[in-house]
Structures are given as C-alpha cells and as structure tokens.
C-alpha cells in the first residue's frame, strides 16, 4: 500500500515539474509572439494624435525603448517574484485585472459546462440505450446541429428570442448598485442566463455525441451481457457497469474544453459584452497591451496544464488499469 503511495507521489511530482517547465517555456514563447505583431502600445492609438515626444515618453515609461533582451530579462525577473506587471491600458496591476476577468468567466463557464454535461448525460444515455431508434436519430441530429452552429450566431438568435425579457448584455445593471442584495442577485442571474445557455449549447453537441458513441461501444462489451446474465436490472447495468467505463472519453473532452476556454468563450463574451477573460484578451490585443497579454496567456497555460493533470487523476480514479 505504502509503495503505491510513494509511486503516486513520485508520478505526481514528476507531472508537476513537467507542468512548471511547460509553463516557463510558454511564457518565453508568448513574450516573443506578441512582439511579432506590428506596432506597440505607444503608437497604436492609446493617445490619438500623440506627439513624437509624448510617444517617446510613453515608450520609456512602458520600457519599450529598451532592447528585446533587456525587456525579456525584466519580464522574467518580475515573473519570478510573482509579479505580472502593470497593464498599459488601465495602469492597474495585471493580476488584479485578470482576477476580475477570470471570476466573471468562471461564473459563466462553470454553470454552462454543468448544464451541458447534465443535458449530454441525459440525452446521451437515452440515445445509446435506444440506439437505432427514431429518438436516437433525432437526438443525434440536434446534437450535431448544436455542434455545427457558430456560437456568436446562436448567441444573437437567443438574444433576439429573449428580447424584452432578459438583459441584452453586460454582467449587471449599474443602476442597481445601491439596491438590496436580493434585487442585485436576481439581476446577476438574469444577466447570466443567456451567456450560460449559449455556452452550454455550444459545448453540448460534442459532449453528447462522444458520450453516446462511447456508451454504445461499452454496451456491446462482454461484461454488459454478463451483467445481464447475472440478472441485474437495466438501471444498475447502465449506471454501474456501462456509464463509468463510457465516461472516460467525455472526461478527456471536458478537460480539453476547459483547456481551450477562450476559444469558445471569446465569442460568447463578445456577443453579450461579458467582461471576462475573452473580452480582456480581445481588448489587450487591440491595444498591444503586452503585460496584460503575457499575463492572460500565462493564466491560460496554467489552466491547460492543471486541467490535464486533473484529467489524468480522474482517469486513474475511474480506471484501475491506468494506475498500474
């Protein structure tokens, strides 16, 4: 028992070390990547019609007048102290900006993911159990349609459908700032409904298809017939014997989805003016806000690395064959 604990710790330690290495490598790569784009923060309309003197002064202030090597050295030194720098855009610490954006994104993505998962498990299990039936075909058609629909278009259709009933954008109503807690809470939830639903529907399609396929495959396994032969009820066979084995590909997919957070989220956030990570990155790109971009991409790197670790852990929890 203790030897397996030692082994688990060793594996975990190695994975964390590799993750840290990947993060540093990505940080360096990103530093160069953003500087490949033409223009910089000082000459890109931060101050319209800025005089050459003002521009030079801004460049000095942002450190853009130094050599690339010196800038990299300064960035890495800063990073080593856990300091992500100051945003060129709003002169606030990048960490504080990112934290606000991350919290906003997570409050949209997590309920959306959970909703998508719940829908996918319900419909996926039903379709797999009645595979080949008309309802199976219909559910798959719906899922494939959801998978194929462009997210921003779906968002706008939902906006149109809910016009007058739900707020069209933003995360809260600024005029409710002084109102009671309950009114504010209701307002926040109302603002969440459309973005969460849009995000859930975008990711739902792939979840459902993957789960159904994997479940159909699992249901043809020998141990399912054997479980039937032992007289177990259909419910028990589905829940205990089929679903757990069929969940593995879905776990991978959810991990990947979380890892590629921004790709799906940026569209939804831009439709609903949701002040999350996607929108921050979009604005930072336009403003060549290097510290903000470097910080945001570092955050995404950490999210990808961590979600991979979590997927691996979930795998070894779900499937004992992975452990040995």
């Amino acid at each position: 028992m203790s030897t397996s604990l030692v082994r688990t710790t060793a594996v975990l330690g190695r994975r964390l070390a590799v993750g840290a290495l990947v993060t540093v490598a990505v940080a360096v790569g990103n530093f160069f990547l953003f500087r490949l784009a033409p223009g910089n923060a000082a000459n890109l309309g931060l101050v319209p019609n800025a005089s050459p003197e003002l521009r030079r002064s801004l460049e000095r202030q942002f450190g853009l007048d130094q050599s690339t090597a010196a800038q990299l050295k300064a960035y890495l030194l800063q990073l080593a102290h856990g300091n992500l720098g100051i945003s060129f855009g709003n002169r606030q610490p990048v960490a504080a900006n990112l934290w606000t954006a991350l919290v906003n994104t997570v409050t949209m993505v997590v309920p959306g993911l959970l909703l998508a998962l719940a829908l996918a498990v319900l419909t996926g299990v039903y379709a797999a159990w009645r595979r080949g039936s008309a309802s199976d075909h219909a559910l798959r058609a719906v899922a494939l349609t959801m998978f194929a629909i462009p997210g921003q278009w779906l968002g706008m259709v939902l906006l149109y459908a809910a016009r007058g009933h739900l707020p069209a954008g933003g995360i809260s109503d600024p005029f409710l700032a002084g109102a009671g807690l309950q009114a504010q809470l209701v307002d926040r939830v109302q603002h969440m409904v459309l973005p969460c639903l849009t995000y859930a529907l975008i990711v739902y399609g792939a979840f459902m298809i993957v789960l159904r396929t994997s479940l159909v495959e699992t249901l043809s396994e020998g141990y399912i017939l054997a479980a039937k032969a032992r007289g177990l009820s259909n419910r028990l066979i589905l829940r205990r014997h089929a679903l757990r084995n069929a969940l593995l590909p879905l776990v991978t997919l959810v991990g990947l989805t979380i890892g590629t957070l921004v790709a799906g989220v940026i569209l939804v956030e831009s439709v609903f003016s949701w002040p999350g990570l996607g929108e921050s990155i979009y604005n930072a790109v336009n403003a060549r806000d290097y510290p903000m971009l470097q910080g945001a991409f570092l955050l995404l790197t950490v999210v990808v690395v961590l979600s991979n670790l979590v997927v691996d852990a979930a795998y070894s929890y779900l499937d004992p064959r992975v452990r040995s």
Partner: protein
Amino acid sequence: MASETLLEVRDLNVWLPAAAGAPRVHIVRDVSFTVGRGERLGVVGESGCGKSTTLLSLVGLLPARAAVSGSIRLDGVDLLGGASPRGERLATARGRDVGVVLQSSMNTLNPVYRVGRQMMEGLRPEVRTDARRARARVHDLLERVGLPPRVARAYPHELSGGMRQRVAIALALAPEPKLLLADEPTTALDTIVQARVMEVLDSLCADGQLSVILVSHHLALAARFCDRLMVMYAGRAVEHAGRDTISTRAGHPYTRLLLAATADIGMRKDDVVSIPGAPPSLALAHEGCPFEPRCPERFGDCADRVPTLDQIGVDHHVGCFARQTKGHLA
C-alpha cells in the same frame, strides 16, 4: 440418473434478424430436450449450428429483436408464456435459478471494479445486504472454484485467464442457481488450464444438486463431463443420447465424424480426420437433410426431406434416414 425433471424445453424455435431488409434467419429449429435435477447435458456441434443461441434463449439473453417460440419450463414454470409480459420471468430466472458462464467469459468482468464487489452484486438480496455474510459468501464461492480469498480484492486485469474464468464461474454460482449454463467455458484457455477449469466444474456438481448445460464444439471434452449429449447441426438436434451410447454406438454420420475428428498426440499428421465442407448458411433456404452435402452415407431420400428425430434405441434419438431405415450399424 435422477429422473426428476428440472428444465423442459419443447419445440424451441429462434429467429434472429439479419441485416436491414433481409428476411430473419431461422437459427434454432424445433429443438426439444430435458435436463434432470443434477444432470449434465452437453450440447455439441460446429460453430454456427445454433448451440449458443439455444442456450442464450433459455435465459432471454438474445438481442431484443429476436423471436422465440416454443416452451421453456423450469421447475414446472413456463418461462416464455404466462400472464406476465414476456421476458419478465426470464429475467427473474436468470441470475437466480439459472447461472450463466458466457462464451466470452474472459471479458465477463468489468475492468473498473474489484472482483469481490462484482461477485457481491450477484448474491441473493438477503445475503448481499449483510456485509459480513456477503464477504464470507464471496470467499466461500472463490474457494469452491479453487481461488484464494485475496482474489476478491484484485482487479480483473491483475488475474490470469484461467483465474478470470474461475471467477466467471463463481459469479454465475453466486445466487446459488439450480442450473448452470456454460457456453464454451474453456475455449479461450490452454489445455492444462482447461482441464483444471473442467475439474472445478466437476467438483461443483459432485453433490448432485447442480444441473449443467455445457455447450462445446469439443465432443470428447463434453463426453467426459456430461451424462447426456445432444449433437446439433444447422439449427437442429440430430442426435440425442447418453454419453456411453454416443461414444460407442453413435448413430448419426455427423456424430461419428465428429468423434473421428478428435486428434491425439500419438497420431501422425495424416491420421487426423476432418469433415470436408462447412455447415450450410442458415440464411439460405435448402431442402432435405442439411448434412446431406457432406454426408458419406447419403442416399435417395436425403436431398428431398428433412429427417425427424426418431428413437432408434433405448434413450437414443437420431435424425438420419440412413439410421432409421437401416437400423443400427454394428
């Protein structure tokens, strides 16, 4: 042999759906047999002759679109008919009065659960709900198939093929069934492990309480283990007799060829007999005896009519015109 009848199957017919659009295929044709309490029946024949389908239909494990007719009575209760919707009684019977060891029993175990947990699922409710009794019962079952208690804590992938097969048998025995259906239980195992598993099965039947139907393509193995044998060909029973009758006075040419086709380590390559040709596809209609194209004793009638299973001796039934008209061969 014990004369009390446990299982009585009459005129069993099974049709399975083929590919979409194609007519359904008549897999099992008018098969009747009985199994007495404590009796061991062997069902033998080549692949594709309907042995496994016959067995699976007894416990309702065929695909949902399969059609079954005839009667299956276990302890006098008709499992197919009756007021309850079809399948309900089959489901109750399987896993309670009937244990099943499947052909693919190497994959009988769910890879993600420990062996003990899977065995507990099969225990009768009154045993399962008492953790201490359940654990004792699992260890007892493992002991009966010759495995140490620690196997209960292992995952399936940590066991050898032979061990997994014994676990599969223990699983089938968990609810203390009266009848054990074993579908090629040793096919995937090497000869030595196969012999051990058959020993285990033998010891389980020693007290005369458990009846067994063993499906095998291995006539010699089935004849060693079983009291009676039913030889199947192209969905029909072609010979049905006690094992001694089969080994000494087999009536059907197919049975005799199967017996002759058994290889022995002392034989030379040229001595090994095989039956030329292959069983007919059940999807294609054919008239006459289905074995006729491969039969060394065929004559006039064989190509036109299907022989019925007639009694030609004491407890000896054969479906062959050659035997029915000419009587026993010496």
